[in-house]
């Protein structure tokens, strides 16, 4: 087990180095002088020279990469061209918002997705099964930003039940402790803020959760069906166990193994979906930040976000793999 995890960790090194090379080359692949690109269009010659000096842009590429990587490892991704703030600072400020949104969506997707899948499989070819799978089929084919717009329109504009954009009602004061709105409002005992943040969280979470929810439902259904056909299930039934016990005590545990892989894989989709959802709902997270950075040609910010997203994705995949070996001991023998 330890050996497997060590090996898995070592395999991360080339991948992370590769992603850093991609992020690094962004500035050099873009047309024009990198120093000018980093300084922004309207920078003075002095600023450009200072940047050239600071990042060693007159030195050979591999030395530049070394300098850049060293700085990045120390948390210095340079300053944003637009705001002149440190990119790392800007990303860390926005991270809690993206984290709350993706976590909330994932929990929603896992709970509803697995339950729908299990019910569909245990009542195969029933009306319920067809309904769930029909919805799931639409779910995987839906553009997440359009779903967001539709939710906004129905629940925000027509019914006026929920707010349509932002993170919290701007009139409600909330003391910043950790940066996580939900956590902060609980810590400070600010009940109005908690309700407000939750209300703002609902629509974006549903929009973002739909695709992974649909995928999880489909995979857990087919995985359940596969398990229910196996010999040991027939033995359990022959033993006289109730159908309920067969399904919930024996089948579900075995059927969840492929579902966990899918959950891990879906996290990437969720991050990509966050880029779109945050843009639709004006959610102040990293997804919206990277889009505006690309539009403004804010290269240091784009580099920072790219590294950040890739890092998150790689870590989640690692966690999935580790959970996987705990659940399925057979993986040792592969």
């Amino acid at each position: 087990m330890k050996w497997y995890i060590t090996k898995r960790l070592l395999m991360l090194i080339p991948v992370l180095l590769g992603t850093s090379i991609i992020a690094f080359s962004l500035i050099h692949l873009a047309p024009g002088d990198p120093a000018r690109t980093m300084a922004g269009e309207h920078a003075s010659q002095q600023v450009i020279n200072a940047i050239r000096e600071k990042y060693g842009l007159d030195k050979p590429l591999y030395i530049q990469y070394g300098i850049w990587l060293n700085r990045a490892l120390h948390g210095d991704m340079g300053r944003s061209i637009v705001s002149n703030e440190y990119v790392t600072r800007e990303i860390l400020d926005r991270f809690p918002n993206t984290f709350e949104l993706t976590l909330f969506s994932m929990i929603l997707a896992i709970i509803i997705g697995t339950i729908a899948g299990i019910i569909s499989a245990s009542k195969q070819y029933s009306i319920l099964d067809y309904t769930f799978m029909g919805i799931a089929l639409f779910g995987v084919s839906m553009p997440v930003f359009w779903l967001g717009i539709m939710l906004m329109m129905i629940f925000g504009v027509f019914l006026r039940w929920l707010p349509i954009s932002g993170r919290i009602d701007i009139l409600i004061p909330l003391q910043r402790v950790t940066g996580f709105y939900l956590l902060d409002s609980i810590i400070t005992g600010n009940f109005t803020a908690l309700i407000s943040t939750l209300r703002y969280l609902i629509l974006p979470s549903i929009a973002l959760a739909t695709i992974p929810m649909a995928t999880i439902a489909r995979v857990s259904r087919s995985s359940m069906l596969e398990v229910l056909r196996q010999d040991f299930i027939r033995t359990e039934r022959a033993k006289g166990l109730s159908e309920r016990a067969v399904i919930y005590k024996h089948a579900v545990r075995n059927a969840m193994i492929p579902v966990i892989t899918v959950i891990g894989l879906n996290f990437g989709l969720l991050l990509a979906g966050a880029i779109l959802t945050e843009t639709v709902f004006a959610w102040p997270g990293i997804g919206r930040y990277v889009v505006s950075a690309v539009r403004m040609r804010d290269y240091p910010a784009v580099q920072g976000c790219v590294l950040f997203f890739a890092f998150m994705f790689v870590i989640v995949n690692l966690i999935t793999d580790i959970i996987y070996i705990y659940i399925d001991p057979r993986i040792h023998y592969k």
Partner: protein
Amino acid sequence: MERKRETKTGELVRRFRYNKSAVFGLIIILMFVLCAILANYIAPNNPTPSPPELARSLKPGLWSEDGIKEMPLGTDALGRCVLSRILYGARVSLSVGFIAVGIALLLGITFGVIAGYYGGWVDSVIMRIVDIMFAFPALLLAIVIVTVIGQGLDKAMIALGIVYTPQMARIIRSSVLYIKEMEYIEVQKAIGSSNWRVILRHVLPNSIAPVIVYGTLMMATAILDCAALGFLGLGAQPPTPEWGAMLSKSYTYIVSGAWWAATFPGVAILFSVLGLNLLGDGLRDVLDPRLKT
């Protein structure tokens, strides 16, 4: 030999026809293809009139008394016919799908075959690069590429093609690895066929099933991602009638009650992607039951 192949095709067609959802998917896609081809003839209006007719801005469609008769699905903020723009948009989306998947196929087959057939360090290098590209969510990688090569529909197609390449390369590689070990390939090598001959005549034709299946499903993803890039303003640029870009220009107006301009383009995306997903799943059941998940 020839007769046997014919009966096999016949059997595949029969199996396809019995697969209801596949046939349904095919019908949906054929309808979109027809819309794309006949857009000139069936679109009631010019999708990109210039100058814009602002007097007709955000008028509802047939369901309302205030609507303009010749614009059945209403108009967008610039007074353009939503229906006509959706019909022309089918052209844009379907061609992006085809071209992006085409690029991914071309690159993916090249790298996948080289990696799978030759193995060794070539395989290791190619697969490490694939791993690195998989460390990015597809849309983010596309955004990164667009940042470098610039915005626009043509650039978006290239970016998506590159983004899908690793997936295609993996699929091809694994099917090449499987076929490579077959006895008849051994025989070909033993009788002295060149590597390229073996690859082109024997390995590639036998990996065609997964390529068709995943190519179809990939086209669905391409349409979604292209719309997403358009929505973010990084793909198709105005006034191109692209579904995603149409949404991004219209959704701010839903607050004033103009829901149609932000609804119908999304329905078009939804059904074209749904059609391709159904078709892809169906083809998988028909062509390669082993792939069934």
